[in-house]
């Protein structure tokens, strides 16, 4: 046989062998689509910390080094292969990207979405493509209040929790509270946050609360001089803000330079992300929230200690709440697979995930809202204080999940206006 005639045969064997190796590798991999902001204004404070958390937790799951009781390597015995997609670009682009992840990349499931707009757009597509999807950071309560989804889960509480708890906190801790004012971003997040906060206060105080001014600057406006003046011209006992990310940073810097933070009691419902970078500008007494029991408010546990120390060691900065949210979502997904057992179908994993309770780095997560698809956690607020220059918190109050989250089947706004029936706050 001539050497030349062997070439096509060799080539065919090589291709066949390569295909075999590839398919074996593919079978051993668990392809996880991860969607988070990798560009744009939300990437720095949210998207990248979340990606870092995903990298850290996925590596630990693949190596089997997550603290007990989480055990086993990978998901369903398969090594997780993350496939990242940039969330920037809006809901239309994201639905196309979602289809790409499922149809072209062949992902087993998807964890993602910070923007509430994306969280409302993705679930119908997830249902159509029958792909297990865990929403990891968005706040809108409308996802499961207006929809009923089989393949979609959300592993953290809605933003309503932040603002109901904020209202309870100031009602309990601010002496002779008479008036409030607010500065919130001019889109659904800001308006919903302000509505939940003010409506809860009205219920708690039987309407005895005055709103001096409510400011709604554009998202990412960056310049808040006029709004700060307006808050000063019409002072209130408490100033509420649900600003997040870079807008929080800008507000803190500009308000601190003008003395607003010293002269007024402010509550930042999502202010925890500013602690590491701008803590020195926040005066003692300012009230801080972390959209759940995260960061400085995370309960002590082996998992939290591991997460805090490994994250800080690897990325040079402590994890903020978007990182906790991502870790919670990926861990929840793994635990649902573990609970479903080896070689479980997607439907079996969904059955396992529904109404599951698990321990994340931020403590107990109960998937007991939205027909078992929406998580509820406790919420924590505290007042910033300093000891030897180190930031700490005083007057820390923890609100049980059933105290600050609407019960199963309730519409948040209606539940608050009805006087929050069934809330268990003891």
């Amino acid at each position: 046989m001539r050497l030349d005639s062997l070439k096509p045969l060799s080539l065919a064997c090589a291709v066949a062998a390569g295909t075999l190796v590839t398919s074996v590798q593919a079978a051993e991999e668990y392809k996880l689509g991860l969607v988070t902001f990798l560009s744009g204004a939300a990437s720095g404070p949210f998207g990248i910390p979340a990606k870092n958390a995903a990298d850290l937790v996925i590596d630990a799951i693949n190596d089997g080094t997550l603290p007990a009781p989480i055990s086993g390597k990978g998901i369903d015995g398969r090594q997780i292969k993350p496939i990242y997609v940039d969330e920037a670009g809006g809901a239309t682009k994201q639905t196309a990207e979602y289809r790409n992840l499922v149809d072209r990349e062949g992902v087993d499931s998807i964890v993602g979405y910070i923007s509430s707009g994306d969280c409302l757009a993705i679930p119908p597509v997830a249902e159509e493509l029958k792909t297990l999807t865990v929403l990891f950071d968005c706040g809108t309560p409308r996802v499961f209040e207006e929809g009923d989804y089989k393949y979609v889960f959300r592993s953290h509480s809605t933003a309503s929790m932040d603002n109901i708890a904020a209202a309870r906190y100031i009602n309990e801790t601010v002496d002779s509270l008479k008036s409030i004012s607010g500065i919130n971003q001019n889109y659904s997040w800001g308006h919903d946050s302000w509505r939940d906060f003010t409506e809860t206060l009205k219920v708690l105080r039987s309407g005895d609360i005055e709103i001096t001014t409510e400011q709604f600057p554009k998202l990412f406006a960056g310049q808040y001089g006029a709004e700060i003046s307006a808050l000063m011209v019409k002072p209130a006992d408490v100033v509420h803000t649900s600003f997040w990310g870079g807008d929080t940073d800008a507000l803190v810097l500009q308000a601190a330079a003008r003395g607003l933070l010293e002269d007024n009691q402010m509550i930042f419902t999502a202010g925890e992300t500013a602690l590491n970078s701008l803590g020195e500008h926040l005066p003692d007494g300012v009230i801080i929230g972390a959209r759940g029991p995260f960061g400085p408010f995370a309960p002590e546990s082996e998992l939290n200690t591991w997460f805090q120390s490994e994250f800080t060691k690897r990325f040079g900065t402590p994890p903020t709440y978007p990182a906790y949210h991502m870790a919670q979502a990926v861990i929840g997904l793994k635990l649902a697979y573990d609970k479903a057992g080896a070689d479980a179908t997607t439907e079996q994993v969904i059955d396992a995930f529904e109404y599951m309770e698990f321990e994340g780095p931020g403590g107990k997560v109960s998937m007991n809202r939205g027909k078992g698809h929406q998580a509820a956690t406790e919420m924590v607020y505290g007042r910033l204080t300093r000891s030897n220059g180190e930031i700490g918190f005083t007057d820390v109050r923890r609100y049980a999940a059933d105290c600050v989250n609407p019960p199963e089947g309730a519409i948040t706004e209606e539940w608050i206006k009805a006087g929050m029936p069934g809330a268990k706050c003891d």
Partner: protein
Amino acid sequence: MTQLLAIIIDGVVYASWLFIIAAGLTLIYGVMRILNMAHGSFYAIGAYAGAGMVGWYFSTGSVPWLSFAVLIGAALIAGLFIGLLIERGLLRFMYGRNEVVMILVTYAILLILEDAIKLIWGVEPYFAYQPYSLLGRTKLAGLSFANYDFMLIVVSTLIGLALWYGLNRTRNGKLLRVVIHDREIAQALGINVSRIFTITFLIGAGLGALAGALTAPGLSVVPGIGIEVIVLAFAVVVIGGLGSVSGALVGALIVGLARAAAVHLYPEVELFVIYAVMGLVLAIRPQGLFAVASARKI
């Protein structure tokens, strides 16, 4: 009374900030007939360069007051460098093209620079807050104002005066005005239009970068920072009249005062009022307040 004072001060401070951004944009359009979408990138590059260098400067423990020079110097160097690169490396090959084509070209530059910024500075926020608090604050009628914001009024006034003097009282300014009026006649008279274009683009890029640097101390510098301001800057120059520096000044004042009044009196229309003013001006004077209507060449 306190509210009126607050509206005036807030409005003028905001107008100063807007004018510094819009001056470069309108200057480039006036001379080169390029509606420069990449102006937002110059702003972002100035903010990143200034914030990065100020952060480094304070880490060395040097004299705090010199940080202002570092902030402005770093931004100007970065802005002039990138401006020169874009003008000499790309735009000069496209002069004379349709204005719409130039919008698309500069939009492409904006997208490229957005990614370049991420490659150079990453996506983590940068802070340069020290200069903002360094100047302290002043109390007027019971309200505290950051002295840094008053400094913005001074800087924008100086920029306005420098541009007015440069355009109206210097030989180069007169040459530039000739180019503004008629590029072909200017060329026929022996004026080096290409050189004037380069200088104009550099001044515009420098002003954009300077605006970014002066803004950086009051916020965290993050990706996308330049996109947010470019729409506002366009509103200002459209109100004032494309290509008119004095128009940009008046446009900035109108937008600044209208926005401040809305924030204090009717916060719910804060965003709407800017574009309502723009719509009103365009309905009455489609060419803007200060632009001279000209017959279209056929």
